[in-house]
């Protein structure tokens, strides 16, 4: 008896949830995607999640997973190692990403060939522990990402707050750099690392992205950033998709509460509910 690709239906609508070892189909006409494996002609799930069928391709999307980078993704990462001619960056993926010396903009914005001296002074540009924003240039065969910061909007990050959330909660958009009207800026990295920082005053060039100012940030800016951070944690706890509009609505809705109260579970729930309502109103 050939079991068609219907599997088990949950009582909540059309979601098809499987666990490792569940046979999805015995029909050999399907191609197997991620999250599945072939066990004697049976297409079996290897992770717990939802079955996705696109024409003849069947894959299982797990509930949470490490970041799987694709070309063009914007990521926020932390330098873990300085090697010969390249840096290793931790981006919440299954292997550390690689940032080559030839893929960064040198201070001063010069365009010149990298010499031996540049190699020796790599540490003066980026050290272990520094945070950077970069774009994925390509993906190696084993899954490691190749990053580049060849644009003035990428580079070393200065003063701000990093929030780590699940990569599946970041919505893919045209741009991931936003200047929020509430007075702070946000970088929504596709890898789940979100960077909050005070909006830079003058929009002048920052010397190739390696110059970071150490001037003290005003109290009002700090409050805005703290509130945003707590809102992000509230939204991620309730698995709400994050993008500039949802973050902004959550911020506005939370203005009635004190910053530290946002972290209380009851307040979190209330705020998230109001945010979702507002999102539905404005976006249908």
């Amino acid at each position, binding site marked *: 008896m050939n079991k068609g690709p219907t599997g088990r239906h*949950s009582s909540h609508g059309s979601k098809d*949830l499987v666990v490792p070892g569940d046979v999805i189909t015995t029909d050999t006409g399907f191609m197997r995607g991620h999250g599945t494996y072939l066990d004697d002609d049976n297409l079996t799930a290897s992770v717990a999640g939802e079955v996705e069928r696109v024409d003849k391709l069947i894959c299982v999307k797990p509930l949470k997973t490490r970041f799987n980078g694709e070309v063009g993704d914007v990521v926020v990462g932390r330098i873990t190692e300085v090697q010969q001619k390249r840096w290793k960056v931790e981006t919440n993926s299954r292997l550390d990403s690689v940032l080559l010396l030839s893929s960064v903009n040198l201070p001063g914005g010069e365009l010149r060939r990298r010499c031996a001296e540049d190699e020796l002074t790599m540490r003066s540009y980026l050290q272990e522990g520094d945070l950077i924003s970069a774009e994925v240039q390509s993906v190696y065969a084993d899954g490691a990402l190749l990053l580049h910061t060849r644009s003035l909007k990428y580079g070393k990050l200065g003063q701000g707050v990093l929030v780590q959330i699940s990569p599946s909660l970041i919505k893919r958009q045209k741009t991931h750099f936003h200047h929020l009207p509430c007075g702070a800026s946000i970088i929504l990295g596709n890898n789940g690392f979100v960077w909050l920082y005070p909006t830079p005053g003058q929009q002048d060039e920052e010397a190739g992205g390696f110059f970071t100012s150490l001037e003290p940030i005003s109290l009002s800016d700090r409050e805005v950033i703290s509130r945003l951070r707590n809102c992000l944690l509230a939204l991620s706890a309730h698995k709400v998709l994050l993008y500039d509009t949802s973050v902004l609505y959550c911020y506005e809705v939370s203005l009635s509460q004190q910053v530290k109260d946002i972290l209380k579970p009851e307040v979190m729930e209330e705020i998230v509910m109001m945010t979702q309502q507002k999102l539905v109103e404005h976006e249908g």
Partner: protein
Amino acid sequence: MAGLELLSDQGYRLDGRKATELRKVQARMGVFAQADGSAYIEQGNTKALAVVYGPHEMRGSRNRTLHDRAVINCQYSMATFSTAERKRRPHGDRKSTEMSLHLKQTFEAAVMTQLYPRSQIDIYVKVLQADGGNYSVCVNAATLAIIDAGIPMRDYVCACTVGFVDETPLADLCFAEESGSSLALALLPRGGQIALLQMDAQLHQDHLEALMDAAMTACKGVSKVLDEVVRRHLQEVSVLTGE
């Protein structure tokens, strides 16, 4: 041990269970937000917590990376308050190292490591209360944690400890019953494949078959319970993320 009957004439054990009855299993997934995967399980009075990190870049000794597979790194430890007498050395002693090695071997058989070359997967298991069947409960907890982390596995890995008293196999031993012969079996239930079989006691060869059958039946029972836990968790989380 006068008066301590492991199996009464009516077929009841010390805690009132029948010979083939499992202890009550309660489990939860996703208990730690900062780990990739985590689970907490209680089997009767034995309680264990498992945490999984990975797959991630190999930390520590770089020469241990495998070019075609992920390395699984397991650490088993018992809380100092987990046993009747305070445990002076929670990890690093010989028993813990042996258990860690067994857990590593068990999961290397089930986790599809060839999908993650040059990576490392860390599994940390801690026994919070030890009342028999430590290895089995740890395997069950680690299975749930790995599923929670989204790491692909061929199938669940379910384990159970069984013993033999008065010609009857007893399933899911508690601490008092473990003093006799105890056999621990880790099974991949759907295919009936054995991931690990361990026993260090004396048992007559004729009884081995019956004991193995009892162990396999018990493991399949455990797998049903774990399955329920996973499906319930899936349902809850998918309701949150669904529109």
